[in-house]
């Protein structure tokens, strides 16, 4: 019997496909999310929109709060650690979190190095803006990749940019001659073996999800049609005027992301989505997607 192998880590990511992973800040929200059909919850003290509003240093959530949520739900529980903060990740693994998000939503702990995720038994998800970044994280051991988008804005534009960027680069890779792959790996700044795998298979070697700015069922469908295999919804549910029906609508929208009658049906009757902020009005130092490399 073996635990913590790459196959076992990617296995859980496979089980989360076609689902919605919802940010929750307490037991009550976690139960609403689970009852609405969420495939997983992300336990954190403040959702990205509030992290933006409050400022200050944003760290791993209190383990006590995460454990309470773990006790309250049967679905997998994820939690975030700071980029490069492997000690936070060790604590999260110790308390039995099912997936760790090494996340740009929190204040980075290391501006040079991400966590060496291969040393952990628990799987990691990491954000990316482009293919090179995705493949570096996979090289470090990430078992799931998601777009960074621009968290806490309710603006989908950055998630679309990142997803289109990754898929366009994958398409381009699959057209290259073998002799061109090493130079491409150099430009991408990515491990050669993974570049070669992607060129041969035309996809990432781990599931590819969308996050960062998803606020409506239409946003969720858009990201799925652009190639995402599941979505994370952060501030979009509990910053809206109607969390419960919106959470249910999101779940239906992901299962039926290509059924426009369903999408129309679940979009009707929802109250206002989160107000949001346009990502293009953010100062460069306010953009969370810039964190990590």
């Amino acid at each position, binding site marked *: 019997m073996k635990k913590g192998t790459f196959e*076992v880590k990617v296995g859980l990511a496979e089980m989360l496909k076609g689902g919605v992973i919802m940010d929750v800040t307490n037991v009550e929200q976690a139960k609403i999310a689970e009852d609405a*059909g969420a495939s997983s919850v992300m336990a954190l003290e403040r959702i990205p929109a509030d992290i933006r509003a409050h400022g200050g240093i944003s760290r791993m959530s209190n383990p006590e709060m995460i454990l309470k949520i773990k006790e309250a739900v049967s679905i997998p529980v994820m939690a975030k650690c700071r980029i490069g903060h492997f000690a936070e990740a060790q604590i999260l693994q110790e308390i*039995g979190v099912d997936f760790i998000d090494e996340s740009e939503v929190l204040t980075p702990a290391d501006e040079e190095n991400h966590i060496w995720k291969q040393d952990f038994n628990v799987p990691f998800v990491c954000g990316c803006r482009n293919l090179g970044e995705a493949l570096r994280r996979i090289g470090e051991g990430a078992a799931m990749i998601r777009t960074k988008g621009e968290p806490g804005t309710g603006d989908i534009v950055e998630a679309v940019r990142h997803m289109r960027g990754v898929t366009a680069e994958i398409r381009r890779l699959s057209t290259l001659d073998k002799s061109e792959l090493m130079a491409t790996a150099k430009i991408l700044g990515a491990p050669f073996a993974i570049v070669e795998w992607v060129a041969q298979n035309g996809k990432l070697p781990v599931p590819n999800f969308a996050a960062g700015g998803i606020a409506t069922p239409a946003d969720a469908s858009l990201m799925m049609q652009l190639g995402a295999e599941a979505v994370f919804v952060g501030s979009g549910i509990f910053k809206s005027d109607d969390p419960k029906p919106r959470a249910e609508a999101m*779940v239906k929208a992901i299962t039926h992301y290509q*059924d426009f009658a369903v999408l129309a049906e679940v979009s009707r009757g929802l109250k206002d989505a989160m107000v949001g902020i346009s990502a293009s009005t953010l100062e460069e130092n306010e953009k969370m997607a810039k964190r990590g490399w």
Partner: protein
Amino acid sequence: MSELNIGVLGIQGAYEKHALSIALAGANAEIIKYREQLDQIDGLILPGGESTTMSKMMGFRIDYKDILAFAEKKPVFGTCAGLILLGKGIDDPRIHQFELMDVSVARNAYGSQKDSFIDNLTLVFDKENPFHAVFIRAPQIENIGDDICVLATCNNTPVLIESNLYLGASFHPELTPDLRIHKYFIQKIMEVKNGKTPKSA
């Protein structure tokens, strides 16, 4: 075998992987999201994923009773969360179990994800080579009825079982390239289609 159509319930979870295994094993695979699609298939797979999510979505475009009616005459294979749905005895009003197999399972009984594991199993119908089985936050089979035939065990606990028209696994044969279990299910569907009595212990 190419005339067989096998559906995979496509609400949430690893349904694409199952469809790929079915196609590689030589049958037609179809992702099932609507009740009308059930008329066109000879067998159904309930994939891994979250049983609460799948239960919640029953009644939207495909209903619990549609699948139950299908399962009266045609084979169903449940893996992980799908096995939970096939069994009985879960004390959670949000989970709609079909109670098609006389088996009680405990959810997440092996612990959280850090305790997920791989192990080699011996299949009773093909003992020569071990089956590399991936267990992800797996349900544990606790009690089985007299009509349940055990096809594989792990640490003395049944992990692959069969009774009547149904097959259940607490692990994920769709995550590995070994197609023997999918082929076994296809064979079962063929036999039922040709009027043979399904197997029980």
